[in-house]
């Protein structure tokens, strides 16, 4: 079943450093994305900020600790907390990452890649089904930024994602920066990646900055969106049409105005690309 893509527009990630701004002077953004885990058990200022924001703009819940690919059972505590948060926030979308991050009950708090094999696929299809049944809604999974490839992998990441979306009936959060970073680090062509993903499964996009560490690109979210990623974003829009887009900034976080300016640039680029497509069509 094709994914219904909500017309959210252009948003930014809600970050602790910007809480005072959201309380006193809400930014001109169409929607915000919040890190689910930061609000699962909070009752103080984080909760108050989210309570206010959800009354003003749509909210998307984005998790980092579901650990959908881990071989150990999904955490019942986590699923209960997430389900409770979903009921309260009533988010436009719910997403997490195509990764694993737990081992023997321990959280590594990182997004570790999976071998792209039939075994991983079978495992993920079952687990995504479990989460979607629990939440009563579709889950979107984000393509990871990767620094290594497993020797056992038997398919490309875009082939893996397409098959996962088809078999698990889940959605895709396409992180454009991650496509660029992984392409450089693993040596694949981003064009081939974009051509291979299931366009009708993409619910929204992420944009972010990365850091050139010489031998590899680090998905640092510590800088403005680079020009090369903006260029890739134009390509994505050319293939998908208008897609809700979010700018992430998690390290060396600047004033909120700077993040909002990046989001406005995404809106401007989308308008340009749609206008160009209309002119070409006519």
């Amino acid at each position, binding site marked *: 079943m094709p994914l219904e893509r909500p017309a959210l527009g252009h948003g930014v990630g809600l970050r602790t450093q910007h809480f005072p701004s959201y*309380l006193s002077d809400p930014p001109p953004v169409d929607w915000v994305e919040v890190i689910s*885990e*930061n609000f*699962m*058990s*909070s*009752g*103080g*200022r*984080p*909760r*108050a900020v989210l309570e206010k924001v959800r009354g003003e703009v749509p909210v998307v819940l984005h998790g980092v*600790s579901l650990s959908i690919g*881990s*071989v150990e059972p999904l*955490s019942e*505590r*986590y699923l209960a*907390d997430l389900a409770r948060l979903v009921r309260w926030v009533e988010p436009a979308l719910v997403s997490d990452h195509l990764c*694993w991050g737990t*081992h*023997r*009950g*321990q*959280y*590594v*708090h*990182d997004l*570790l890649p*999976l*071998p792209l*094999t039939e*075994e*991983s696929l079978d*495992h993920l299809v079952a687990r995504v089904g479990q989460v979607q049944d629990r939440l009563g809604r579709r889950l979107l999974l984000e393509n990871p930024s990767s*620094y*290594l*490839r*497993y*020797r*056992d992998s038997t398919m490309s990441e875009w082939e893996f994602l397409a098959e996962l979306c088809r078999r698990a009936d889940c959605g895709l959060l396409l992180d454009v920066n991650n496509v660029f970073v992984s392409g450089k*680090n693993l*040596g694949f062509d981003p064009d081939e990646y974009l051509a291979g993903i299931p366009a009708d499964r993409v619910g929204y996009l992420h944009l972010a900055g990365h850091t050139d560490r010489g*031998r*590899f690109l*680090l998905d640092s979210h510590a800088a403005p969106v680079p020009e090369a990623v903006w260029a890739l974003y134009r390509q994505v829009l050319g293939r998908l049409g208008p897609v809700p887009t979010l700018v992430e900034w998690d390290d060396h976080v600047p004033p909120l105005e700077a993040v909002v300016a990046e989001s406005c640039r995404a809106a401007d680029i989308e308008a340009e690309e749609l206008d160009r497509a209309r002119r070409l069509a006519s």
Partner: protein
Amino acid sequence: MTLAETQALFHAAITGGEVSPAALEACFAGTPALPAADRVGIYAEMWLWRQVEALGAEFPAVRACVGGERFPELCRDYLRAHPSEHHDIGRLGRRLAEFLRLHPAPERSDLGDLAELEWARSEVFCEAPASPVGREALAALGPEEFARARLRLVPALRLLSLAHRAQEPWRAAHRGEEPTPAAPGPAYLAVWRAGHDVLHAPLDAAEARALEAALAGAALSEVCASFAAADQPATVGFAALSSWLDEGWVAGVEVVEDPNRPAGAHGALAPIEV
């Protein structure tokens, strides 16, 4: 390799376990410019960095005392002793105070207490909200009811009993000053939230005993007995209780029914409407 085997290998490799270069090469594909071990090393670096950042955000004063260069090393030792067991990275520091008391930094035996203060502030920041009651809640009680009444304190309140005056290096660190070691205690601190701000303040021993009794659910007669040694116990006790109400620490006053009286329609605990 199975999925389970690759995850066990990967986890060991990034968290400091013993994994041979040959095992890494067998599992992960590298390139001449960036061999497999170096690629796994990126994840190992990120594993530590992300958690050091999280701990530094929760314990800025401890980090200032330890120093920026030593702090990652302290975090690595702590994480090996107490790896994260919760999906919220904000819960990572739950046992740092305990760890620092068992493994004190050189010449800084006060850091366990400082970590306990910072952790309490962090917990209180996120605690569930509650609507506090004012002085009128006590004024509504008759003399007999007062002795039997119990205070229902707000969730965003902690009482710390420390061996050092941890508030001193905390204050210095937050002013950007040199956080010299805390003076020996004992020191009793109340930590609470006012609006969205977290506050802490020292208590004397009598008030700390009284607050401890109130937190344990003791009747007001027992709470007030903590001030018995004061020159004017009633005056001192009343002043303390009033300040708790003024600071928003009290969410309700409940009167325990006299067991010698027939049970009322409201059961054992009858809330006072205020």
